[in-house]
Each structure stands twice: as structure tokens, then as C-alpha cells.
């Protein structure tokens, strides 16, 4: 361990005394301030705070990701190029210790940078909330929906297999889906159709969602906030508000609460509900009845997240800390990828290869999303080339490989004021460190062992 610490200290000192690191840190702080000072939101205080948090965080993340990549790629490759490695490799230092030391040193710098950035973002968002004169209603929204951490309960949206299968066969029967379409593409298309049809509530029709409240959800006080978050979509703009009646009942039919609201059939809406409705371990049914029959068009919910129940839990600070921890781990993984690439290639090549890798991975995540369906593959599969099929196969595999890494988006959760549980934080960090980083470690150590570090140029 002493040897790992020695290399970590060496890496930390190298970074701390380098102008590039000072520049990166200055750039991160400048980006955070720049977004805070120039952000133009939707004209509301909560909107401004959301923008400050989201854009400042994302700007800082990308700057630090580039730094992590650059520092990681150079950690070993520059040692080899400048031949410092000849001093280290003749000492009783294992390849694993060199890799770990380098990675830990860079991760420490990243941890400091992300902590500074987090503190700045937190302070700026809070200051913004207290600086501007605005109506109390906006301040309340800011405190209730942005600078907070709330439990999020999603409805049980399980779609039975037979429902998709039935949809699929009818789509094939009417020729919408080609018989020769790849099964997974055809299934994805049918699944989307089912989701959209479930999200559409026709005029005068009622719809019910089931919410299983986790045992851990315990509202702190009766006056605490609880909200029903409704996401509506409309193909046409500026529709008149629709009157709705929402009924909350227990599983055995006992009425818990009823509320009537009139909402525009588009956008995201929060409807306050009493916390007495929410009891950890219970299952509640939420039923929508359309009271207003004057509207001709159906009501359309977001097929992927139609409803959420949000319950006030704790403050913003703890949530910010957990988000920072996850972001820190993600950045340290970027550094790990860089360190490993730097053991195989020279620094410019390593940077090029890793940037390409990240671009392909981002593409894989986007193009294999269930929200994106390849039209040609479903309707006219003969037109899809073998190359496109192979690329699609690779992207699907890559996306599956990356899924645990991107399942939790800490910045989005923070912006939405959603509580990031410690359990999810720890699981995400452990998965990042023990799976992805460990893979990089094994590959890096293997490459380093195979490498002759003193070859003439």
C-alpha cells in the first residue's frame, strides 16, 4: 500500500504543480459562475435555479471529464516517453501498484475539483433563491421542487407479455411490421405501440394507476409536501385546460382522497396531495376521471413517465453530496479508461482512441434507446445492409454493457429534486469501481506487464 501511496502522491504533486490543472480548475469555476450569471430560464426563480444547477454541473462534468481523460492518458504514457518509468520500473513496484497509484492520484484531484464545483453550485443556487425579489409562490416552488430531496414513487407500469405479443401479431397481420423484420426490432416497435396506446386516455374514459409505496417512505410531518406529478403531451399547442378528477383509494377500495383540478393538457404539472395518503408499505390506486367532456381530443400522457408521486424527504445538501459522489466515481472511471489507454498507446493516440470510444458508447446508448426505432429494420428489413445489422448488434451489446453505468443520472435527479438514496449511491459507486474500473485495471496491468518500457525511440 505504501508504494501505491507513493505513486499517488507523485501523481497528485505532478498535477497540483501543473499549469494545465490550474487552468482546468479555473475553467470549471469560471463555467459554474458563467452559467449562474448568464442563465436565462423560463422567467421563474425555480427555473433559474434548475438551470444553474443543471448547466453548471454539466459544464463542470465535461470539463473535468476532458481533464480526467487527458491526465489519465498521460499518466503512464508520458512516463514512458520521458523515460521517468526507467526510475520507477527498476524499483520493487508492481505494475498493479503503478496503475493504482496513478489512478488514485488523478481521482484525488478530480474529487477536490468536483467538491469545489459542488460547493459553488450549491451556494450559487441557494444565493439565487435568496437574492431576487419574487412572489412567495415562486420561493415555495423553489424550496418544494428544486432545492430539496423527495422520494419518487413510480406507478406499476408492467406490460404483460401477451399484450405486446397480441399487438405484434396484429401489426404483422396488417402489414405494418414486415414478416422478415428481426424479432427484437419488431418486439420493440410493438412495445412502443402498446405504451403509446396505454398513455392515451380517450374522451370521457377513466384510467387507473397502481402505486406500491415502498416501506422506506415515511412522510416526516402531516404538513410536509406530497405531490402528484403529471406529465401530459399534446400534439397541438395552446389547448384549453381540461377538468380532471383524481381519486386516491387503498387497495381494498377505501377512499383516501379526491381532488379536482383543471390543467392544460400539455407539460408537467404538480398537484399537492395530503401526506396522510402516503403510507410506507401500502399500495394505493390513483384514478383519473375526465369531467370536462367539451374537449374533443384525447388526453395523452407521457408513455415513459406518465405519473409520479413525490414526497418531501430531506434537504438539498445531502442530495448534492450523493450526486457529487456518483459524478466523482464516473469521472474516476474516465480517468481509469485513460490510464489504461495510456499503457497501450502514446498520449495523443490514447486520447484519440478513448474519445472515439466515448463517442461510440454515447451513440450506442442513444441509438439503442427504446424510444428510437429503426423504421427500415421494421418495415423493410431487406433494405438494411449486413454492415448496418452488424453495427446495430455491436451497439446493442455495448449499450447493455453500459446500462448499469448510466441507469442513474445523478445530475437530472438533483435538478428534479429527487432523493438519491444512499443505497443507490453506494450500489452505483461500487458497480463503477468494482466492475468497469476493475476491468480497466486488469487490462492496464496486463498491458503494462507485456510492455518493454525502455525501447529506443
Amino acid at each position: 500500500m505504501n508504494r501505491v501511496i507513493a505513486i499517488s502522491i507523485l501523481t497528485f504533486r505532478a498535477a497540483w504543480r501543473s499549469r494545465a490543472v490550474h487552468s482546468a480548475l479555473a475553467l470549471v469555476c469560471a463555467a459554474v459562475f458563467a452559467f449562474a450569471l448568464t442563465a436565462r430560464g423560463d422567467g421563474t426563480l425555480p427555473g433559474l435555479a434548475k438551470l444553474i444547477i443543471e448547466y453548471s454541473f454539466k459544464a463542470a462534468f465535461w470539463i473535468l471529464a476532458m481533464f480526467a481523460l487527458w491526465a489519465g492518458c498521460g499518466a503512464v504514457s508520458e512516463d514512458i516517453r520521458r523515460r521517468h518509468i526507467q526510475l520507477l520500473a527498476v524499483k520493487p513496484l508492481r505494475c498493479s501498484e503503478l496503475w493504482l497509484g496513478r489512478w488514485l492520484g488523478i481521482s484525488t484531484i478530480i474529487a477536490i475539483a468536483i467538491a469545489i464545483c459542488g460547493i459553488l453550485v450549491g451556494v450559487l443556487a441557494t444565493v439565487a433563491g435568496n437574492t431576487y425579489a419574487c412572489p412567495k409562490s415562486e420561493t415555495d416552488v423553489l424550496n418544494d421542487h428544486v432545492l430539496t430531496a423527495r422520494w419518487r414513487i413510480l406507478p406499476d407500469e408492467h406490460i404483460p407479455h401477451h399484450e405486446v405479443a397480441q399487438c405484434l401479431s396484429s401489426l404483422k397481420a396488417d402489414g405494418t411490421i414486415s414478416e422478415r423484420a428481426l424479432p427484437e426490432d419488431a418486439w420493440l416497435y410493438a412495445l412502443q405501440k402498446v405504451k403509446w396506446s396505454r398513455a392515451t386516455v380517450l374522451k370521457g374514459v377513466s384510467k387507473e394507476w397502481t402505486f406500491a409505496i415502498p416501506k422506506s417512505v415515511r412522510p416526516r410531518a402531516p404538513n410536509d409536501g406530497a405531490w402528484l406529478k403529471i406529465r401530459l403531451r399534446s400534439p397541438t399547442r395552446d389547448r384549453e385546460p381540461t377538468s380532471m378528477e383524481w381519486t386516491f383509494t387503498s387497495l381494498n377500495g377505501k377512499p383516501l382522497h379526491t381532488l379536482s383540478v383543471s390543467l392544460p393538457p400539455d407539460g408537467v404539472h404538480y398537484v399537492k396531495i395530503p401526506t396522510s395518503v402516503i403510507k410506507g408499505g401500502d399500495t394505493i390506486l390513483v384514478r383519473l376521471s375526465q369531467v370536462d367532456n367539451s374537449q374533443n381530443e384525447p388526453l395523452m400522457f407521457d408513455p415513459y413517465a406518465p405519473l409520479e408521486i413525490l414526497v418531501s424527504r430531506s434537504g438539498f445538501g445531502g442530495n448534492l453530496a450523493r450526486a457529487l459522489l456518483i459524478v466523482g466515481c464516473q469521472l474516476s472511471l474516465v480517468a481509469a479508461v485513460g490510464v489504461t489507454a495510456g499503457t497501450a498507446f502514446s498520449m495523443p493516440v490514447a486520447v484519440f482512441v478513448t474519445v472515439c470510444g466515448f463517442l461510440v458508447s454515447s451513440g450506442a446508448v442513444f441509438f439503442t434507446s427504446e424510444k428510437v426505432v429503426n423504421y427500415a429494420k421494421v418495415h423493410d428489413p431487406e433494405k438494411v445492409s449486413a454492415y448496418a445489422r452488424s453495427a446495430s448488434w455491436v451497439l446493442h451489446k455495448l449499450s447493455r454493457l453500459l446500462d448499469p453505468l448510466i441507469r442513474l443520472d445523478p445530475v437530472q435527479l438533483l435538478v428534479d429534486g429527487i432523493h438519491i438514496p444512499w443505497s443507490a449511491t453506494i450500489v452505483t459507486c461500487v458497480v463503477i469501481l468494482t466492475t468497469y474500473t476493475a476491468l480497466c485495471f486488469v487490462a492496464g496491468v496486463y498491458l503494462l506487464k507485456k510492455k518493454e518500457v525502455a525501447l529506443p525511440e
Partner: protein
Amino acid sequence: MGESLDKPVTARGLVKIFTDFWNRPKVRAVDGLDLEMRPCEIFGLLGPNGSGKSTTIKILLGLLRPTAGEVAIFGLPPTDVRAKRLVGYLPEESYLYPYLTPRETLDMMGRIFNLPSAERKRRTDQLLEMVGLTAAAHRPVGEFSKGMARRVGLAQALINNPSLVILDEPTSGLDPIACRHVKDLTVTLAKSGKTVLLSSHLLADVEDVCDRVTILFNGRVRARGSMGELLEKRNIVRFAAPDPGTEGVAKIAALVREISGKEPEVDHPSMDLEEFFLEVISEASRQDETLSGAAPTCTPAPFLLNE
């Protein structure tokens, strides 16, 4: 395979062929080299540029893998961590981290050898004193002259009190005083039980300190043996005596001529330039005690002498 302290370095049939990107042979840097070093000796590796000295050293240190042949350091593969614990290496160039100070460099190297904090500090102080850099201990190495950086390189090579010290061009970039000190130190190290492998272009350095030498050319051994065996001119005898005066010299010359039948060469032995230079600087340093660079000192660090 266990440690064998009586065989510091053993190499058999060592071959190193450098290849290009497509793995096609490019250069045969070392060609069938056999090497065996004895404990406590100073072994010189000589040869012109490109003769394979540095490649041989890098193979011995595990920095390069031999294409063929076997190599062992104290009976262990050179990549074995146990073998590395016993070796100190001063590379051709110092390759130090420019942003670290000498103290930080030595502390880091001490940490890598798992030395306890107090011991690291003790050794660091002694080594800095030995190489004359105590006053510059807190300046980054990047600001140092080549000679000063070389001294830090030498200090880091000795932090672990190694049993085998490999010095690649140790006097390169050093002033004559420091060269003398390095040579004295090399002899002291050998006397205190360490084996020294010294590679140099400077034949005088090797001649001054080495017990045995191997001369390489084009990757192959061209000559090897002790200094006495290789350099002694058995057909010539030299006498040294107080000046007997012109008449005395003439009488001795006549006698030699009569016995050998050849004309003897007679001259006064001269002091070599190194000796003269050291005398001048020694006198100057006695008069001027303020120094901005490295101090001229040659006392070996006590821990190297097991004190």
C-alpha cells in the same frame, strides 16, 4: 527460484534484437553475451556508442526482455520484486521528475522501498549531505544543472542501500571534483560489500576504479578480464626514485642500455590534470565558504557503510 547473494549478475547467451512495428528484425543490439559478476567487485562495461552497453544494463534491470538467453540477478529473474529490492540504478540520463525537489524524490523512492518514515528521513538527510545538495534540497529538480540532477540521480540509486549498484555513465555531466567523488564513492561502496556494475565511455574512470572489465563492440564481447591482465605491459619495467641528478641518471641509463641493449626513456613524472584541478579547488573552497550550487563533499552516507 530463491535468492543467491553470491551471484549478483549472471547472464548466459544474451541476445536482444529490436524489431519494427511489423515485428521484423531491425537491430541486433546484443549478440550472445555471457556475463558473470562476483560479489563486492567493481565491474566495468566498456564500449563505443551503440555497442550494446545500455541495452545489456536494461535487460539486467528487467526494462527490456531478452530475445534469447537467460539472465538472473541474485539468482532471480530481473523482473522479480525481490531482486529489485537489492538493486540501485543510476540511468544514463537522470530521468527525474522535474517538479519534485530532491527531498521529495528521495522520500518517494524510500516509500517505494517500504522504508519507515523515520528511516526515510535519516537516509534522505545523509544522501543529500553525501551528494552536497542539502542547501538545494527544497528546489525543484527541474531548476538544477545537469550535474546537480545527476547527483540526485545517484542519491536515489542508493536510497535502498542496494547490494548491486548499476551505474550507467555515472560521471557524465559532473565536474571533475564530483567525478572524483563518484569514483571514490564507487570504491567505498565495493569495500563495504556492494557489487558495482559501471558502464562508461570515459576509459580513465573505468581504469581508476574497476577490478574487471568487459569490452563490447557491436553487441559482442571483444575482451574481458581484470585490469591488471588487460593493461599490464609485461615487456616494460618502470622505476620511480628521488631525482639522482644528471650524472646519476646517465649512469643508470648506461647500465640499462648495457643489460637490455636498448635505449631507455627517461623523464620526470608529471601530476595529471585531475589531480592538479582538485588541489586548486580544494584550496579555493577553503577560502570561500559561500556556495550557490552543489557542495564539494565526498563523505559516503553512513547508512551505506552499515553504520
